[in-house]
């Protein structure tokens, strides 16, 4: 029995099954209402977006303001495929095609723009997302222009949502715990030293950008497949900022931070539902207060690891640990 708890992979699996099971139970028993289910879907999409943006911005250190652009590519690709092929196969195909198209676009955009640094890169990625939006608005014959696509078949259910969210988190965490991930992180730490230590920094910046875009594409595809309707303006600058807020709020360079932040913001936003008039003001004030007291984000660059979870019941670990 003791051996089971020493195996990290198994612990992860048990935790995942537990989360999935509990939520599934709450949905079937009706404790999670259809309204809350919608929030849950938004939450999962936000987690995927934030974790993938964290790979680009928090870990590789490349400030990107165009994440919604990649999301929209995933959304439109998946929507167009499922509209023509309204089956589960079509849905899976749509999600994959959306992710691959977004990744391809990320690769093509990343090659020239990742030579830029800091604010210049931010402006370039911002421009890129706007260009994508304008293309979708003007590509009337395919995307139905500014009116958007309607009646997209809905396939997203909790099991699908969970599969893609957990998959994203696992794959990106695995990557970051490998030599390739460390190569990305070294770029954030000191690009010159990184290159002098034999790391092809351009390659890893483009790789992080492409992988980030891939998962943003998945998030977009799930979005389209859940909300029946998409239009270009849903994927504007504000959406990119929303995702960046989650990343900064959770901590640049912390995957668990992104997950916690996305969840916290979803909870806050749901709780504030009853104060509809002042909701956005309260939301902003809360953000400002949190950033004043924890400028490094909720988690900083620390991760909530399973060994910490295991020790939670232990009184030693409660003292002075975050």
């Amino acid at each position: 029995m003791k051996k089971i708890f020493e195996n990290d992979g198994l612990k992860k699996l048990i935790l995942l099954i537990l989360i999935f099971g509990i939520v599934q139970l709450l949905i079937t028993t009706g404790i999670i209402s259809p309204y809350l289910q919608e929030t849950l879907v938004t939450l999962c999409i936000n987690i995927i977006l934030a974790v993938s943006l964290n790979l680009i911005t928090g870990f590789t250190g490349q400030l990107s303001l165009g994440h919604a652009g990649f999301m929209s590519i995933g959304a439109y690709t998946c929507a167009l495929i499922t509209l023509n092929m309204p089956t589960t196969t079509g849905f899976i195909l749509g999600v994959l095609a959306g992710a691959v198209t977004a990744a391809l676009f990320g690769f093509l955009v990343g090659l020239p723009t990742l030579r830029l640094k800091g604010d210049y890169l931010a402006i370039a990625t911002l421009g890129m997302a706007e260009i994508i939006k304008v293309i979708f608005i003007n590509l009337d014959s395919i995307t139905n222009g500014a009116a958007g696509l309607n009646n997209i078949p809905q396939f997203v259910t909790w099991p699908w949502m969970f599969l893609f969210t957990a998959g994203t988190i696992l794959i990106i965490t695995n990557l970051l715990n490998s030599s390739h991930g460390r190569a990305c992180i070294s770029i954030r730490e000191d690009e010159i030293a990184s290159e002098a230590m034999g790391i092809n920094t351009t390659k890893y910046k483009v790789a992080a950008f492409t992988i980030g875009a891939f998962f943003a594409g998945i998030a977009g595809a799930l979005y389209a497949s859940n909300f029946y309707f998409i239009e270009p303006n849903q994927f504007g600058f504000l959406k990119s900022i929303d995702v960046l807020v989650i990343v900064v709020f959770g901590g640049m360079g912390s995957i668990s931070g992104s997950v916690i932040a996305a969840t916290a913001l979803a909870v806050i936003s749901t709780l504030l539902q009853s104060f509809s008039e002042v909701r956005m003001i309260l939301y902003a004030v809360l953000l400002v207060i949190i950033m004043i007291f924890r400028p490094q984000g909720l988690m900083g660059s620390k991760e909530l690891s399973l060994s910490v979870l295991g020790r939670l019941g232990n009184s030693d670990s409660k003292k002075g640990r975050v």
Partner: protein
Amino acid sequence: MQILKVNKLTKSFGGLTAVSNVNMELNQGELVGLIGPNGAGKTTVFNLLTGIYVPTSGTITLFKDGKEKKLNGLPPYTICQSGLARTFQNIRLFKDLTVLDNVRIAMHSNVKYGLFSSFLQLPSCKKEEKELIEKSMELLKIFHLEHKKDELAKNLPYGEQRHLEIIRALATDPVLLLLDEPAAGMNPAETAQLTESISWIREKYNLTILLIEHDMSLVMKICERIYVLDYGMVIAHGTPDEIKNNKRVIEAYLGEDMSNA
């Protein structure tokens, strides 16, 4: 046997020629010093050798395994992968990462498993990661840093940060090691210890070492040959004894009037 040949290396920044017509030859296994007054262009030479600057003219040739390879114009990571590793004058560790991560990152270019293997943490990835840790720990033992593997690099004392930079450079598996002021900021006892470590590292890893240093006790003690740079030009080269008595070197360091006096 020759390992590096630098021919007429020149670098100008606009109107300023920081390094002009530098010729240099390093033989396998040698320990060579590069000295000169402040602003003489020593670090610029290092930056040219490691690809951080692109030379305005001149060639840099590396001889490795019987093959010659032109290094001028190549990006820094390719030069590093060809076998040139360096430390920095103003320490450039990955400050917010652990000591172990600093070393493991430098081993990255020799890692064989691909991105997909890392996505799924396939056995090939896990096995190699384990080897990386073992190799890193081996290197950390050189300067007795193995018990500090989980500390953040920025929390190490200054002397240990310098040591970690050398270890990180060794982790790239170089044939030629460039040390930029390894003893800067160290006290005499630490410098003496470092002097020994450098000689030991050279023997153990079969390296050629080129080092920039202002601490003459270190340079005169361990360098077999010395190049002296002033205003971007090599004004003298030879054994430590020859350099000590070279009139132009004394002039460069003390000024013309002093040597006449």
